[in-house]
């Protein structure tokens, strides 16, 4: 149960970071934080009566791999953006023409 509650806190914090932080690396970290939050809830609720439930653990393993992949992609894109614009944040969007 404690895990689950921690997870909720992490999730909320991550989302807040995602919205508030403008630096891309921080956004990516924020994503990892709320992702882990969700995983914690999944496992935590799964075993709140003490005994281990393998199903959510397997799900979380899957989820972790997915988030690793997403993180890698995000890093690559952010890196590319850094190369192109020299900044680690979103460019001001000008008029599209």
């Amino acid at each position, binding site marked *: 149960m404690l895990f689950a509650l921690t997870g909720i806190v992490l999730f909320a914090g991550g989302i807040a970071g995602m919205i508030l932080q403008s630096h891309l690396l921080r956004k990516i970290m924020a994503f990892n934080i709320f992702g882990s939050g969700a995983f914690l809830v999944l496992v935590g609720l799964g075993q*709140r009566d003490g005994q281990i439930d393998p199903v959510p653990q397997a799900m979380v393993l899957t989820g972790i791999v997915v988030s*690793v992949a997403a993180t890698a*992609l995000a890093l690559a894109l952010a890196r590319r953006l850094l190369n192109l614009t020299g900044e680690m944040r979103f460019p001001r969007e000008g008029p599209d023409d």
Partner: protein
Amino acid sequence: MKTLMRLLVLAGCAAFVAVAGMAMLVLPEPPIRLAARVSAELGNSGVKHPVTAVLLNFRGYDTLLEIAVLLLALLGIATAAGGDAVTGRRLHGNPQAFLQSLARLLAPLMVMTAGYLLWAGSHRPGGAFQAGAVLAAGIVLLYLSGLLPAPAGPSWLLRLGLVAGFLVFVAVTAVPLFSGGQLLQYPPDMAGALILLIESGLTLSLGLILAALFLWLPDEHEEAEE
């Protein structure tokens, strides 16, 4: 204005935490217990470790899609990197001899560890992902220590290595369909063998993929030179 926004968001999140916390504290007992069913079917799963059984048998289909996700990330990186992924990143500065000798020592150990983890997966924590991760770490280490030449672009052979595990998995998934079975439906007696086959395929490919995820990151210095 900005601070107001900040406060609003934080307040919202706090409220969410409170609500969700309450909701979870008053949670009733779940009507369905999957753990029991897993242990009941563990015998026919072909492996002894429940998590591996769920990952590669009961919910193996999830795992198949998950490998696809990894490949996708790789593709995304390759496209996003534009031209420069083809060359891969070059190493800058020369590594110390100490690091090289250490790497020489570690690399075979890491391969062995990977092998062990792969085999251990069937009855205790471990399996293809852990093994693949170790393998990837080995590759990255060798590369950083300059022992591995920079990957000269994704050659045909390298691409084959990258998708081999996935293709094997797809094949094993598809075969039962021809005999009127379901996706990924292993014949119980062969389940263990097939799972091992999948896992070893995955170990290789995952190692390469994870390494590539790192090695193909577009390189800033190159851009700087342009």
